């Protein structure tokens, strides 16, 4: 009698472990994150040659974000190694979004309004919500971590300035990462002034741990 119960328990336990192990592997699989290259930034001095570029995000797994364009504007056109104004534009569904980083201020422009924020604090600087999409800007000092629980969220994340370590990937401001089917989001700033653009579908309002 006891031997049968033992076998039954083992079977159920083994079944549960098998199911559990699949879930664990799925959540932690690096296949749920994908690093991408941000389209190379065009550098501009004072004058023309600023043009629209219809740049599709290559291999983007999400159909709600596209047309990422990065432009860097230099001070006075004299020193091309001194970018002063970094500008990103992308399309969220069909909404045009623009994010600008100039000196010590951040700007987010949508179809209706431009918001300006000082870059003097760490944490979430700005959040804009469009139905089930969220656009967030996060500022971190070197070594600071950003953690949150997420559920059923698709995320496109890229450093506008600085570097982050995420999912064992070191991302510079020339790279981004797609994240999906994860139950947590965690990254750490590797440079002193790191500013991250986070665009997500489905709630990003989850608890930050």
């Amino acid at each position: 009698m006891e031997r049968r119960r033992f076998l039954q328990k083992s079977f159920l336990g083994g079944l549960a472990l098998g199911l559990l192990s699949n879930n664990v592997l799925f959540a932690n699989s690096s296949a749920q994150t994908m690093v991408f290259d941000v389209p190379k930034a065009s550098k501009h001095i004072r004058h023309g040659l600023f043009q629209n570029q219809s740049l599709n995000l290559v291999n983007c797994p999400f159909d709600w974000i596209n047309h990422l364009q990065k432009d860097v504007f230099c001070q006075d056109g004299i020193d091309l190694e001194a970018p002063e104004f970094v500008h990103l534009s992308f399309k969220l569904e069909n909404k045009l979004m623009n994010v600008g980083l100039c000196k010590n201020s951040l700007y987010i422009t949508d179809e209706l309004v431009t918001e300006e924020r000082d870059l003097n604090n760490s944490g979430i600087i700005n959040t804009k919500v469009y139905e089930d999409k969220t656009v967030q800007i996060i500022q971190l000092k070197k070594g600071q971590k950003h953690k949150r629980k997420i559920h059923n969220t698709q995320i496109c994340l890229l450093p506008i300035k600085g570097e982050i370590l995420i999912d064992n990937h070191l991302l510079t401001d020339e790279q981004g990462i797609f994240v999906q089917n994860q139950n947590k989001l965690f990254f750490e700033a590797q440079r002193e002034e790191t500013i991250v653009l986070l665009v997500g579908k489905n709630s990003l309002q989850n608890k930050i741990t």
Partner: protein
Amino acid sequence: MGGIVLDQPLPYASINQIDPFLLIHHWSDRLPGGQHQKNVGVGPHPHRGFAPVTFIFKGSIHHRDSEGNDETVYGGGTQWMNSGKGIVHSERPGQEVVSKGGDFEIIQFWINAPAKNKMDAPSYQPLSKEQTPQVLSKDGKVKVGVVAGNYKGVESSISSYSPMLILRLDIEAGGETTISVPEHYNTLLYQLDGVLTINDTQQTKAKDMTWFENDACDIKIKGNQTCRAILLAGEPIKEEVATYGPFVMNTQAELMEAIRDYQAGKMGELIENFD
């Protein structure tokens, strides 16, 4: 700039602007010929918030824009564009000089617009050499082309955003003249070539830019050699300037909106038609 090698007297070093003048680009080249216009010059790009003005000295410039203007201006002429709330334009050497080759020389300078005019409707004003009023100095050796403003009673047809005097100077060796400018105008002289003596005290040479103090009205110039120069004098606007790339506004937020509006197609679209 985009593969074009040119001289930039303004902005320069610590001089970001000479209010209301924001930029001077001097492009001088010998085009080899055998090219197609679509591969030369500057293709479609936007502007908002100021007036880009181009003096053509050699060759020609073909201007096309999203308002439907399509015009070629030749040596001695001027292209004056008030970009206002936004316009997309291209500026390329004329097809003849591109295909046959030859000397090409232009100066483009930017004149800021007051805040109240930055969102005006855009406009384009071409002025040929023949349409540019000329004033001859007393000694007959200095020709002054009046592009904007009133010079010795001669007025240009160009409509500018704010009071100014914009002159083109052709000076023979030994020629001299005195130009009077309101004392409060910010005034600069950019020299294309030759040697000048200014106010009997200072010699200037090719590609020198002279920025005058606001302490007098008269500027005496004398040609030590044959010389070409431009004089830009304007009433300072004295407003905050936010400028990057092709836009000149008053705040960074307005620059963001200029970029957005351009990307959203609000400045129009230019599809160039090459014969």
